[in-house]
């Protein structure tokens, strides 16, 4: 079970009030977790990663276990603490706009 924490705007959009818990098949990576997240909440498609390219949107960050994973490969294994459910994957809206 993977735990994912969404930023406030996306929690509102997905109609969730707290962290999301997902079952992910195979290795836990950014891609597999986001695939599972978007399958459960289709309204999030296009909001975290771009259609087509699948790239992380520029003002979205991925944090976990006190590390910034934003620039990791989408297919790199997530930290064991995230894969085991001990720590959540934090999806964060970057500070921007003054």
């Amino acid at each position, binding site marked *: 079970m993977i735990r994912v924490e969404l930023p406030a*705007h996306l929690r509102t*959009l997905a109609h969730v009030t707290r962290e999301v818990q997902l079952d992910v098949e195979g290795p836990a990576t950014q891609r597999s977790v986001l695939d599972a997240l978007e399958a459960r909440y289709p309204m999030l*498609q*296009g909001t975290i990663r*771009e259609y087509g390219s699948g790239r992380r*949107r520029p003002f*979205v960050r991925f944090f976990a276990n006190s590390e910034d994973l934003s620039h990791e490969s989408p297919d790199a294994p997530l930290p064991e603490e995230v894969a085991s459910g001990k720590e959540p994957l934090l999806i964060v*809206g970057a500070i921007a706009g003054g």
Partner: protein
Amino acid sequence: MSGVRVLVGTRKGAFVLTSDGKREKWDVSGPHFAGWEMYHLKGSPADPNRLYASQSTGWFGQLMQRSNDGGKTWEPVGNKFAYDGVPGTHQWYDGTPHPWEFKRVWHLEPSLTDPDTVYAGVEDAALFRSTDAGATWQELSGLRGHGSGPHWQPGAGGMCLHTILLDPSDPARIFIAISAAGAFRSVDAGVTWQPINRGLRSQQIPDQDAEVGHCVHRIAMHRSRPSVLFMQKHWDVMRSDNGGDSWQEVSGNLPTDFGFVIDVHAHEPETIFVVPIKSDSEHFPPEGKLRVFRSRTGGNEWEPLAKGLPQSNCYVNVLRDAMAVDSLDECGVYFGTTGGQVYASADAGDSWAPIVRDLPAVLSVEVQTLQ
């Protein structure tokens, strides 16, 4: 009992303002989608309870929302806007080629007859259509691909397709406008397009007879005379009496002919409204006086309408999609400002009163006349 529903898009959410036919007392609902930029909301002429809304932020991109109950509840619908084929390039601000990239939906135009069909004008400029109530979107790529696309350049606000006019007398005829490419017309339901910019004069481009490159801010028509078009260009108010084949300037005695909005009285096809803005570098009313100007002669002769509007220290702007008219017996006129006021006139502009004064900056105003 008749009434009106005003749909207001702002920098930080959407608001729905409703009133009976007297338009004196208003109910305010919102913010809907709090914190999101709501570029535009519009209702279907074929089913007034069907609304579409464009919702976006720089963080999470573009979302589309649909309501089936007049804005009481909303549901997200398709938000995938993929350019048809290889997108190609347009000109960047410095004249270099720049890849076409989708940024946001500026304007929504529901079909006049089918609630499930809606057009979307987007940045970078292109026209999309949905025929399944917003679930999926397909580009009408003949517009971008008609030939001049590589020469289009963005205006200061981005290269946006901001105006879509559907001809009530001919379902195959569509007019659109792009900043800063100009106006275009299709007579085959959007398959092929031609620029319609003859007669426009723009100091910002070297060739005054250029086919494209004019910064058109807004076009309006009266549904009874769809071949008469009115245009607020960057500078100049223009009209065409032949469906855009040629344009003549009708700025006349306006204090400045820069501005963004233009609209037509619901029952008088030669009565038009603009809000003059001082200049392209000073986006506020001249002399700090917020005035709507009305022409009852289709342009050239203009009268200021100031009753009820601030006449000192007013330095707001009125953006291109932020004016609309209702179709009650005495035509109502509405506009919103970047200062967060939405003003209404229940007497065709003779007098004004604010419906709300302190919203976030207003991006768009649309009105539905309800029976």
